[in-house]
Structures are given as C-alpha cells and as structure tokens.
C-alpha cells in the first residue's frame, strides 16, 4: 500500500515538482501515473523510492510512515519494492542469471534458495534460454524482462516502473505491459509511470494524471485523456 498525505516537493532550484498530492494505492492494485515530461511523475516515483525527501507531508508505505526513516533503513524499504526503469539499468559485466541473482545476494539469500529462485523467475519472464548471455547481447525487450526478473526475484509486495516501455517498440512494449499485468494478477501492487497513451487506454486500469505538479485526475478505470 502506498499513501500520499498532503505531499509537497519543492526542489532547491525553486521548482514546485509536486503540489499537495493526496492518494492511496491499495495492496494488489494496478495504477498508472500519467503526465507529460516534467509534469512531476518522476518526482512521485523518486518520493516513493525515498530517493527524494518530501518538503512537507507524509508518505506511508505498507503502513509505515517513511518520513522519519533513518537513512540506514532505506535499503530495507527498497527491498519491499521492485524497481524497473526506462533504461533497464542492468549490470553490463554480469550475465542475465547473475544480474538477477545479485538482487538475492543483497538480501543474503542462501545459495540454495538462489539456485532455485532465479531459474524460476527467469522462466516466468520467458528468458530461461538466455541465462548465460550478457545484457548487451539482448534486445531491448529482453533486457527489460531481465530488469523485471531482478525486480521480482525477492517477491516484493509492490513493483514500481518508471517509463518501462519508453525505449521499446509498440509490440515489445505491449508484451512488457502484459507481463506487468500478469504480475499484478499474482497479487503484487504495480505502479507504472508512463506517457504511452495507447497502452493506458487499452489496459483500462486506474489512472492518476499529474500536470505541473498537481494531480488533476484520478480515475478508477480510465484512459489517458480527459475525454474518455
């Protein structure tokens, strides 16, 4: 569960990135954060990941107010959420398998657990046969699948995706979205920041629309634009 209570974010440069954001994304929900570039949706993602601190207001994640979280506890907060980015952010000198296993090393999983879990998650994203390849040998869509596998391998309660299809062609993008939907079906909360209009329209999921830092619309089963 992610809850924003009267959240403001003003950057040192003087930009008001988020103005009075109030919303609740329930456990198991699928929500799109939409808006044009510079609208503030990336800031919202950064606030959820606690990469940025809100200027005022509270952000509650899984029932815990993260406002007063000690910096040393941030890694543990992040372990409760898987993160996917537009540019995949894979470790280039590690194989697909190791990229995914890496996230498990960090949470100090046992080698036995790692050997069991990684192949399972790779088969879920359809990459079982590419485990020994390096990221630069994969297509964009495949790289994003690796990133998804890495995000999901520790079974986080929520998945945060920042423009996950931004670098992909429409067909591949749709594949990734279908995968995200499947993940959501298994009970993981999914939050996707995007400006892929057609996908948002097609999925008929909750849409939180942000413009110039303000949330201007929050539709339970919306499309990208007002009219729909």
């Amino acid at each position, binding site marked *: 569960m992610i809850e924003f209570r009267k959240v403001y974010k003003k950057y040192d440069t003087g930009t008001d990135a988020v103005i009075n954001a109030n919303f609740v994304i329930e456990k198991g929900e699928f929500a799109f954060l939409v808006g044009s570039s510079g609208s503030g949706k990336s800031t919202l993602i950064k606030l959820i990941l606690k*990469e940025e601190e809100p200027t005022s207001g509270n952000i509650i994640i899984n029932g815990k107010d993260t406002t007063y979280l000690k910096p040393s506890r941030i*890694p*543990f907060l*992040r372990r409760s959420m898987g*993160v996917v980015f537009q540019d995949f952010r894979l470790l280039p000198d590690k194989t697909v398998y190791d990229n995914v296993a890496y*996230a498990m090393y960090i949470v100090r999983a*046992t080698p036995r657990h790692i050997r069991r879990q990684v192949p399972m998650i790779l088969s879920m994203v359809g990459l079982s046969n590419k485990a020994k390849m390096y990221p630069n040998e994969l297509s964009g869509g495949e790289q994003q699948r690796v990133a998804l596998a890495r995000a999901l391998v520790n079974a986080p309660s929520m998945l945060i995706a920042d423009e996950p299809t931004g670098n992909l062609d429409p067909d591949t993008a749709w594949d990734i979205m279908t995968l995200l939907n499947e993940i959501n079906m298994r009970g993981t909360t999914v939050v996707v920041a995007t400006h892929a209009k057609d996908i948002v329209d097609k999925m008929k999921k909750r849409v939180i629309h942000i413009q110039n830092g303000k949330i201007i619309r929050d539709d339970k089963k919306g499309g990208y634009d007002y009219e729909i």
Partner: protein
Amino acid sequence: MKYNILGYLIGEGLSNVFKNKKSTGASLIIMCATMIIFGVFLILGENINHFVTNIKSEQGFQVFIKVDATQEEIQKFGEDIRKIEGVSTAEYISKEDGLNTMKKRLKDDKGVLNGFNVEVLKASYMVKIDNLEQSQQIQEQIRKIDNFAKITSSDETITTLIHLANGIKIVTGAILLLLIIISIFIISNTIKLTVHARRKEISIMKYVGATNNFIRWPFIVEGMIIGMISSAISIVLVGGAYNFIAQELVNASFMKLIGMSLVGFGDMLSSIIVVYMLLGIGIGALGSVISMRKYLKV
C-alpha cells in the same frame, strides 16, 4: 551464511581488480612510486638509527699509559679507572693488540710495519661511559692517575653527529608522514575515478536495496588488494636497489674512513614487509572509503 557473504564481497573485490585493468594499473604505478620514495626514506631512517646506535655504543675514549709502566702498574691503572663513577667498561688493549689494529687498518700496506718494535707502542684502556655528558669530568679524574700518558677522544665529533642524526630523523619522519598523506590523497583520487566510472552500477545496487556496506566492501577489498600488490612490487624494487647501492658503498673508501656500515636489507626485511603491507592495505582501504562517500548518497 556469513561466510557466503564474506566470500562474495571478497570475490567481487578481486574480480574488480582484474576487470578494471586501466585504473588498477594507474593506481598500482602511482602507489608503487610513492611507496618507493617512502622506502628510500624508511631505509635512510633505519640506517641513521643504526649509525647512531653504533656511535652511542662506542662513545668513550682511549686512555694511553706511559710506555715504561710495568704490568702491575698497568693493572692498577685499569682498576683505578673502573672505580670512577660513570665508567661502564674499561677494556685493556695490549701493545700487541694495538699493533694488530694498526695492521688491520693499513691492510695492503701493512708491510711498513714489518720489524716494528712493539715496545715503543703504548698500552691503553678503551673506556666506555654511561653518559656522554659526564665525559669531561671523568677525563679530568683519569688524568690524575699515575702513569697517565694521554687521552684520545672523539666526544665533540660524536655529539655533533648524534645531533645531526637526530635532526635528520625528525626531517625524515616529517617527510614520511607527508608521503602517507599524499598517497592516501592520490589513491582516493584514483579509486574515485573507478567509482565514478561505475556510479551507475552503484546506483543500481542502491535501488535493488543494497546497504552501503554491501556496496562499499568490494571497493575496499579492491583498494586493499592494490595496496598489497604495490607493496610487494615496491619491496622487491627497493630491496634490489638497496642491495646494489649497499654493495657499491661498502667498497667506497670514505665509508671505510668513517668506519660506517650499512644495515643489511635482510635485517630490515621483516619490519619493512610489515610496515609496507600495513601501509599499503591501510592506504588502499582508506582511499576507497574516502572516495566512495559522495557516491553512496543516492
């Protein structure tokens, strides 16, 4: 499980050393250079120490007894010297001993001493004292003993030399300290380059939920390994150079003249290895910690 994590972190550090060949090479060269300079001063310091200890153990003077003194008189003379407060030893040097010493000094030219009448030489006592400052006072007392002939002393030279050596030691210490600071600075900058090149990787680690220590340790291990390798290289280079120079110096005439010897590298080796390894590992680790601080704030 603890072992598993430790093994993983050390393994990562090790593979980083070999993966980032360019920056590892740069770090190695710079660190070796500083450590070699460091070694030069370290060895200089060791030798000065050695020199001072030698001189201190030799502080004292030679007291000659009149040529015509009888064996009993000589005996008594020695006892009288030993009675004086502040005298630590008084070693008897017979006329024959004196001649042998002269022969030794002359080495190749000792032929001039052939047929030399040992009886014209004076017997003497080599007097060593506890405290150099009492030297004048003790000499005064010795002069009063019967059959006294003369005193040869190198007190002033020795005092000056010790003062000089102490001065050099302080300067060397300051230079060593400066070198340590400089190398930490240089190493932290070189590692900063590596860290900077991998800042993306570090940010990924942070997003996946890695703790700062988990990210930091492979870099620290990397720094320590680089430190260790440069220490080993420097020891070999410094040792080789020192042995060569020492060989040359032993044969140099002025070294013989002042009766100075160099410390053998083997004698210093164990302490040099310890100092170098500690220093290399320490500098490497500290350099990594310093250079990482900025990048861990994601």
